[in-house]
């Protein structure tokens, strides 16, 4: 065990995934810290001024969300400080927890047990291991080609044909969203952009920040101005006002942070626009799945937010597209 992790560590450090000393990252962290302090302060003031019961419960939820943000940011910062390995372990755990929430709501059967064991304990670690050893070629096709075919084959071997296609498809979709798409976020560490070689961790930070802030902005604009619901049957809380306000504010934030990326301000704005739009799509799709399953949230792990998958749905959609945009245009 020791020697394996040592080797892995050497591979990672030698190839420049590590990024402990990066002044611009430090500035980003300071910015996040400032935003958290500001949010907590505003929460306190609002709590003090809340009059009606409805307002009080909204503010309580807001403050619960802020408390959870403190914890999430602390965990994210800690894993970034540990370096590439820390980030990979964090995202592998997020994949497992998200998949747990998703599969729990799906009606899998007894015959799927072994397939699920493969998904949780072999395919998930393998996908993140491929990032650790920088095997991009296999990373990109292992799930859409091999796991895609393996899952129905493994279920067929059990001989349980009831709702066969439905069961296979549900597991495939879960692996695609919770594992494959999410793993594109830490895969940003693989990208070698000329003039930006040792700074790819900033891209990950940038993606996560813009995605999560676009969710926060959509929430704030929705609470302040929200009138016209986008698809009330899917989600009663998503409004056009929140959508436009959130997407525009996130785009502005992303453009303002161009200096941590290899992008020009205009390109940074474009990238952030794509991230925010995909984040909205992710939130909508995962809401539709929740409505179909008859639940409000995927879980209750994160105070005020719901489950892990409720928090990262936008990231799952934004990560692969952001990765491939950057790879197509910036990696020679």
């Amino acid at each position: 065990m020791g020697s394996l992790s040592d080797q892995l560590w050497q591979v990672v450090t030698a190839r420049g995934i590590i990024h402990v000393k990066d002044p611009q990252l430090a500035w980003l962290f300071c910015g996040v810290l400032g935003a958290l302090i500001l949010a907590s302060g505003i929460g306190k003031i609002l709590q003090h001024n809340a009059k009606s019961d409805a307002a009080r419960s909204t503010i309580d939820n807001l403050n619960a969300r802020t408390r959870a943000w403190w914890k999430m940011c602390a965990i994210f910062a800690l894993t970034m400080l540990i370096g590439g390995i820390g980030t990979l372990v964090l995202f592998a755990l997020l994949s497992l927890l998200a998949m747990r929430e998703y599969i729990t709501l799906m009606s899998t059967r007894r015959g799927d047990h072994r397939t699920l064991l493969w998904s949780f304990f072999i395919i998930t670690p393998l996908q993140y291991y491929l990032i650790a050893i920088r095997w991009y070629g296999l990373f990109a096709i292992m799930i859409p080609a091999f796991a895609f075919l393996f899952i129905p084959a493994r279920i067929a071997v059990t001989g349980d044909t009831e709702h066969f296609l439905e069961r296979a498809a549900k597991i495939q979709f879960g692996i695609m969203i919770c594992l494959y798409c999410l793993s594109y976020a830490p895969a940003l560490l693989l990208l070698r952009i000329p003039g930006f070689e040792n700074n790819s961790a900033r891209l990950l930070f940038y993606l996560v920040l813009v995605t999560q802030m676009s969710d926060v902005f959509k929430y704030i604009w929705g609470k302040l101005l929200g009138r016209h619901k986008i698809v009330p049957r899917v989600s009663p809380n998503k409004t056009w006002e929140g959508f436009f306000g959130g997407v525009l504010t996130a785009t502005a934030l992303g453009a303002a942070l161009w200096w941590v990326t290899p992008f020009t301000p205009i390109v940074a704005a474009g990238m952030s626009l794509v991230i925010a739009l995909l984040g909205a799509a992710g939130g909508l799709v995962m809401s539709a799945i929740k409505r179909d399953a008859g639940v409000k949230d995927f879980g209750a792990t994160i105070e005020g937010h719901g489950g892990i998958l409720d928090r990262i749905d936008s990231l799952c959609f934004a990560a692969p597209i952001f990765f491939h945009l950057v790879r197509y245009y910036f990696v020679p």
Partner: protein
Amino acid sequence: MSAGIHPLANAIAALARGISGVRVRWAGCQPEVKQRIYFANHTSHLDFVVLWSALPGEVRARTRPVAAKDYWEKGIKAYLALNVFRAVMVRRGGIAQAGSEVAAIAEARATIDQLAEAMGETESLIIFPEGTRGTGEAIAPFRSGIYYLAKRRPEVELVPVYIENLNRILPKGEVIPVPLVCLLTFGAPMHIGDAEDKASFLERASAAMHALRRKGHLQAWVR
């Protein structure tokens, strides 16, 4: 007096909580240090451990599982059952095993004596009245042991517990669990009536569990 909890028992309970992501809903009573008989549906090897781990520490220290002797009497299983979890080992009865109806009745009596003695004045029990693990698709008819136990200790609260989804985490016949989320619903305590006969009591106990099953559903777990 109850013995302390074996450290291994707490470790196994913590592991089981992690794997099963158990959510607990006290729908008809609150966790209390008082004598109770928890009766639950049985679909997985993890049932007892997860149920036990869901109880608060002080309740846990005074709650013992009832385990089938034929299954748990050998090797490491016996060590876990007896030394770690302080299980009460009972023989699974029936005329087939005992040889004759008279022998079966005598044996069942001895089992109830044994359970009542194990409870003493302080201990609670966890029992699985279906008698064996099912697939989770239906609740099997209850065996009569729960009726005779209730008769013997009519003052003790009987608490129905419905375990949802644990059969998907570790189904019968599998060894490695899939870490999904399961839900435990504790229902309202019940007592046996003074003149209640076996059939109607078993019917009532089973109905209580079916009611929890209907309102169970992980869908309702949030808030």
